């Protein structure tokens, strides 16, 4: 499963980088926004990710902070679950430490679900996932007023497709800096 998740994350990165991935998946606005400098059209704060220009170089690699790579800003979840898997400990620790060290920095946690089941229940799942990530960041030293959560449920899939591979990429929390 971990292997599959890694592959899935790599696939997303490849898709986002090239915008010409395998034909059965397409990247939507939201996923593209995470990769680039915009976040789905809400450009009000003036602190775009690219504009920060200073990634948290924790231990030499950009695990946390606005400079973290795409794959280190998305946390994936199991079906109908909202517990954060231990494989994300290092990444979330890095984000938490960055927020703790940069008290003016702000982050928005966008929770998502796969398309199965009812839509408002999936809003609930997305919110629970965002809250779970929030709780980890708070434990790592972030302050509560640095973190906002929003759930889009199944309304903004990262990829289209109706199989387990697509679903596993859509059950996620995206960490968006500068919100």
């Amino acid at each position, binding site marked *: 499963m971990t292997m599959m998740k890694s592959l899935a994350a790599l696939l997303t990165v490849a898709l986002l980088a090239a915008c010409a991935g395998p034909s059965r998946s*397409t*990247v*939507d*606005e939201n996923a*593209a926004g995470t990769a680039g400098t915009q976040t*789905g*059209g*809400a*450009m*009000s*704060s003036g602190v775009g990710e690219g504009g920060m220009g200073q990634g948290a170089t924790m231990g030499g690699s950009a695990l946390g902070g606005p400079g973290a790579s795409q794959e280190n800003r998305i946390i994936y979840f199991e079906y*109908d679950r909202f517990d954060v898997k231990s494989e994300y400990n290092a990444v979330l620790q890095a984000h938490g430490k960055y927020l703790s060290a940069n008290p003016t920095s*702000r982050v*928005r946690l966008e929770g998502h679900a796969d*398309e*199965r*089941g*009812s*839509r*408002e*229940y999936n*809003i*609930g*799942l997305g*919110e*629970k996932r*965002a*809250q779970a990530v*929030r709780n980890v960041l708070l434990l790592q030293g972030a302050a509560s*007023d640095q973190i*906002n*959560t*929003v*759930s*889009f*449920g199944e*309304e*903004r899939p990262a990829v*289209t*497709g*109706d199989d387990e591979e697509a679903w596993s990429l859509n059950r996620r929390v995206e960490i968006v800096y500068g*919100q």
Partner: protein
Amino acid sequence: MSRINWQRAAAVFALLMVSAGLRAELQIEITAGVDKAVPIAVVPFGWSGTGARPPQDAAAIVAADLARSGRFAPMDRKDMLQRPTAGTEVDFSDWKIQGSDVLVIGQVVQGAGDQFEIRFQVFDVLRGEQLLGYRQATNAADFRRNSHRVADLIYEKLTGIRGVFSTRIAYVTVAGPATKRIFRLIVTDADGENPRIMLESVQPIMSPAWSPDGRRIAYVSFENRRSEIYVQDLRSGSRKRVSARPGVNGAPAWSPDGRKLAVSLSRQDGNLDIYTLDLDSQVLTRLTSGAAIDTEPAWSLDGQQIYYTSDSTGGPQVYRVPALGGASQRVTFEGSYNARPRMSPDGKQLAVVHNDRGNYRIALVDLARSYTQVLSDGRLDESPSFAPNGETLIYATREGKRGVLATVSANGRIKQRLSTVEGDVREPAWSPFPPN
């Protein structure tokens, strides 16, 4: 901090109240009908007047409505040997030979100004008796709606069940490329004609819900990049934001008296719970608490109970709680996933999204016997909504990769598919009966 930013973010959206063109928004196709649809002849109505002719063909609208119900098989006009427009012109033996059990004739009579009167009669061909005679007054603008009302009256006379041809359907469409999705909240007549765009946004629109009087729609809009609940007046298009609290603002459901919304809010603690919101006083009453996801409320007919989805025992199941507060009680037990309850108009059943051997399907849960009947046969079906006469449910399903709507009769036998010309269509909500 971010609240203000999100307000300023001002996602591009527009409020429109337009007649969105000439073509029907939804294409409707009957995919399964009853074995013995009643043969009926709806003769083109005569015209009696000297001014502008009626804007639509009333008899054609009536015949199409009756055909769409799946219970009637209207005779093709070109097979009609005679076209009587008055009772005295009817020769029953001809209709009997041609196999019609029921005959509908009528005429449209010009009135003052833009007024018309649709006069029609319904006959039992075998007995040679009139079953119904009626005069429906209308103006030109409401001619189509009143033609549907004629169909409603005929349907009720012949089946004993009130017709729903003059009702409407609200739904959400998503169109455009993946990088530039456009969400629209649309209201059409029940036959897919007369579409109107209520709201258009680049951010998601969810969960449309009709007020009991059919004049307003509550829905969730993400236009400020977070969920907020709005109530919009259909006639004027004006709207009001009724809940924009921190966290999730979701799943609005009108109380039977139209004074309150039941909603799901996560508020500061991030915990989704059921609340009622009094629309006049803005008083918020919390009905559930705890760590579970509590959402998708639906009121009982008497307004005393609220049914809702909760994952407090693991997967989602339906529970109910007294609308004024009290202990919750689990309602569904069959299967691992039962969510988004909707009360049937007779109060005896709940429509739910049910996991049927790995497929998400529409099911009816009988409240007295706790018996679950699966109605749909898709893989990703959701959002069931009852027609106000309880005979039919509309829901969202898939056709290939596209989201489409489908209807199924409550006995599972009559099925239709409704699709848009392009893009996805989802979250159908059937209106209440129109006021008489």
